[in-house]
């Protein structure tokens, strides 16, 4: 009997937590994510323009921002943040927001000054965005799972 009461209390706490998380997710985090995708100032697009001064010796270098984003998709794995978000909710998102994705230093060998700067900037933005999205997805999934479990146990 006592165990059942404890279980009901735990479920109630989880339900309240889930509701708070879902509310927070809908009201604050997702808009924040959308904001993160917007240009930070009028006229600035997320796509980095090529270096203002094209390199004299390496004119065949691809757009650094394209390379940075492609490499971020290739080398950065956001799966861990999804799991973290699933298990820890907002803390997973905080961890993703605080993450410092690391571009491969290998890629800057033979690249000019401006290319390296643009590449690292785009890599970090893309990787961090992916981490945050994954954490949010995990968070939403975790909340939904909690609600589903509660509903299955007759909580509603």
């Amino acid at each position, binding site marked *: 009997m006592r165990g059942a009461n404890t279980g009901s209390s735990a479920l109630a706490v989880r339900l309240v937590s889930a509701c708070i998380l879902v509310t927070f997710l809908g009201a604050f985090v997702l808009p924040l994510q959308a904001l993160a995708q917007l240009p930070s100032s009028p006229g600035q697009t997320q796509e980095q323009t090529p270096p203002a001064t094209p*390199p*004299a*010796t*390496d004119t*065949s*270098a*691809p*757009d650094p921002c*394209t*390379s940075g984003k*492609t490499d971020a*998709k*290739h080398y950065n*794995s956001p799966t861990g943040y999804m799991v973290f978000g699933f298990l820890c909710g907002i803390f997973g998102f905080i961890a993703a927001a605080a993450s*410092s994705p*690391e*571009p*491969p*230093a*290998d890629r*800057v*060998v*033979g*690249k*000019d*000054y401006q290319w*390296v*700067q643009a590449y*690292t900037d785009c890599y*970090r933005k893309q990787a961090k965005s992916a981490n945050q999205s994954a954490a949010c997805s995990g968070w939403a999934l975790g909340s939904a799972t909690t609600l589903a479990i509660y509903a299955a146990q007759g909580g509603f």
Partner: protein
Amino acid sequence: MLPKGASSPRFRGAGRGTAWGVWLSLVAGCVLSPSAEATALPSLRANASGDRLSVLQGRFRRTLVDQAVCDTQTVVGSFAYVVHGRVRLTVETPLRQELCVDDQGLLIYYPDEQRALQVLDPRQALAFRFVQIAHRSSLPDFDLGAAGATLIDYASRGDTLETRWAGPTSTPWRDQQFVLVAVGSRLVHATQTLADGTPVMDIELLDHVVLDGIEIPQRFTLREHGPSGERIEVVQFWELRVNQTSPDSIGPLNPPDAVKPVSVEW
């Protein structure tokens, strides 16, 4: 020893899974016979000449083909690698660039522009993979043992030894497997796969040279299989020198005082 068709076009693209199946079948059927001897493993690292390598220097030509962004770049220069320490690269083509990575981070100096970039991130230590591969391939276990990987299977026939390793548990590679093929003390092929056998990367090591008793490949081809395309890295080394310490080449990179490195958030 290796299947000659492994790097041919027909092994790439849609038929890759089949190709790998064929390759593994060949390895399983020919190299790993049921009567495979199991005598080579205990001495895998006991007499590894590569353990005596402390400094590796030489010149390099690296061609990187990146299908994802349709880019091909060839870089020529020289390198100096203090094992488990500092890496210095001096790029001559396509532009002049000096790079130094150590436990202090990464410093990139452009002598023509008199500018420098600095990444104060110790995680960047030993970040130039192609230089590390030159060192690691001088070891029959590709230094996987020291990295925390676990040997899960091995077999040998004649002087050919194939070892299979599980990725280090505390790293992002924990769910991956590594297969190494060594002929004698010469590592000739390394493969990295996901747990389901999906190839991640494979390296073919060629043209070994013996320097001070240490076998080092003078050429390798690395194929990295990613969701956005394949990356092929062909690296050639020459004028290799081992265990020669010259402060000018293996010391820290010091740009002129007038050059103030700009910090880059990495």
